[in-house]
């Protein structure tokens, strides 16, 4: 964990605040566009937010937090009780949504999904590459950074107020897509589903804040062997691997517990994991908050 101090809390839309988190000492860990961090909030909750500031600034991170009326206590805490001056532990950045080299880009943002795309758009335009951002939200006052984007990037940015104009026509965007264009999409589930349907799979990179609704086979019991200690942990059918490990004295960090944030990543040395996450992590890794086993036994680097 890196120690930061909350320097500014700025209201950047009706229901969104942006936090500037200054390093308490020295430099912060480097990051690239698409990365996110875990904030350890004073109410013991850990929450993931995309970094939306400037990667060249090694002394501060910036994140934006939308208030969720069905909040379990993360966004509500940030909006109501977090104050400048408070010390906030922040994890090293992780990136499940890296920018892949391409001759041109189309960025699709829905609401708070704009955050990981901000540094991407900046990096791509700084490199002199053609890029378009289509940014959808209910109304301009509920779309963070809309004015700044228009000022900075002019007609490369198309703001779509869905309350007045309806949802952006992704099929039309897909039909007009120039060769080699990569599409980066971050937004609510409905927008991701529409993007999935509109764009060829190889062209689309998407980041999710919520898990995709899918069905899996029944949960079955299996064994997890912790290679370093030699402990064998029985994972019953009604318990997650993450919880079973914690109850057996092998707690892992965890955040979303829904297979989207990647906090609980662990290396698999043997056995066949059943990946149920939305991260598509590197080979040999798994996310035990949701993922289970296809083999009766998994050997973990724990």
């Amino acid at each position, binding site marked *: 964990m890196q120690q930061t101090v909350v320097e500014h809390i700025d209201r950047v839309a009706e229901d969104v605040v942006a936090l500037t988190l200054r390093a308490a000492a020295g430099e912060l860990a480097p990051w690239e566009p698409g990365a996110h961090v875990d904030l350890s909030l004073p109410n013991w909750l850990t929450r993931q937010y995309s970094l939306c500031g400037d990667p060249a600034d090694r002394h501060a991170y910036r994140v934006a937090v939308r208030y969720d009326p069905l909040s379990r*206590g993360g966004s509500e805490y940030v909006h109501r009780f977090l104050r400048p001056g408070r010390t906030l532990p922040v994890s090293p950045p992780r990136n499940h949504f890296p920018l892949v080299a391409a001759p041109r880009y189309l960025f699709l943002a829905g609401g708070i999904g704009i955050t990981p795309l901000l540094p991407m758009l900046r990096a791509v335009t700084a490199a002199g590459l053609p890029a378009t951002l289509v940014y959808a939200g209910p109304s301009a006052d509920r779309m963070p950074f809309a004015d700044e984007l228009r000022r900075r990037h002019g007609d490369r940015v198309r703001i779509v107020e869905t309350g007045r104009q309806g949802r952006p026509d992704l099929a039309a965007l897909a039909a007009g897509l120039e060769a080699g264009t990569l599409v980066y999409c971050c937004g609510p589930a409905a927008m991701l589903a529409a993007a999935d349907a509109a764009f060829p799979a190889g062209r689309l990179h998407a980041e999710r804040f919520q898990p995709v609704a899918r069905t899996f086979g029944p949960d079955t019991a299996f064994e997890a062997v912790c290679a370093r200690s030699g402990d064998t942990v029985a994972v019953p059918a009604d318990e997650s691997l993450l919880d079973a490990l914690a109850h057996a004295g092998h707690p892992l960090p965890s955040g979303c517990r829904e297979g989207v944030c990647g906090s609980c990543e662990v290396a698999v040395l043997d056995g066949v994991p059943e990946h149920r996450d939305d991260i598509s992590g590197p080979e040999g890794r798994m996310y035990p908050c949701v993922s289970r086993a296809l083999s009766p036994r998994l050997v973990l680097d724990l």
Partner: protein
Amino acid sequence: MTHAPTRPRRVSPEEVRARIGQPEAMVRAKVKDRIDNYFRQFIAHSPFLAMATADAAGRADCSPRGDYPGFVKVLDERTLALPDRPGNKIADSFRNLAENDGVGLCFLIPGVREVLRVNGSGYVTDEPDVLVRMRTEARKPELAIVVEVAEVYFHCGRALLRSRLWDPASRALAEEMPSMGEIAAAQFGADVDPGLLEAAVEDSYRKLY
């Protein structure tokens, strides 16, 4: 030693008032009927409360509730919601609320001397929009208790100061208590190994949700 022939004597409410005097206007004025931002901030930082209920006949019950700070949700300035976490399944509070909706809460924050008091009326709900805010460790409670607030106020810190509740040195008191395994073995009166009982207690505490 001789046995007292009677119970300790009972004092009438009139006599009580005569002995302790009237509360100051300031004390009355601090009782509010709405959850303002300070009350809300206290609830958002409180990981523990005690909840009192009573049945139709007025027989009282008081039970502890705890989770991460802010586990009690403020639905609006007159309404709170408490998650029901797995416990002993006795459900005295639920049964009581069905008969008698009166409820009293004492919220604590470790390190804070004052106690937040809430009195009101309660009922049980399974409203999805309420339960979804109470998910932890990938589970959400089946039920929650909604408390409609009649009175809310800060109770002065003397009780916690006198009790030295947050003084780290007070933790030495725990060393004077036998383990729950020893107590249970003695109270059940059966021929059971206290060590095994203690291990069973520890094991049951490893799964909190």
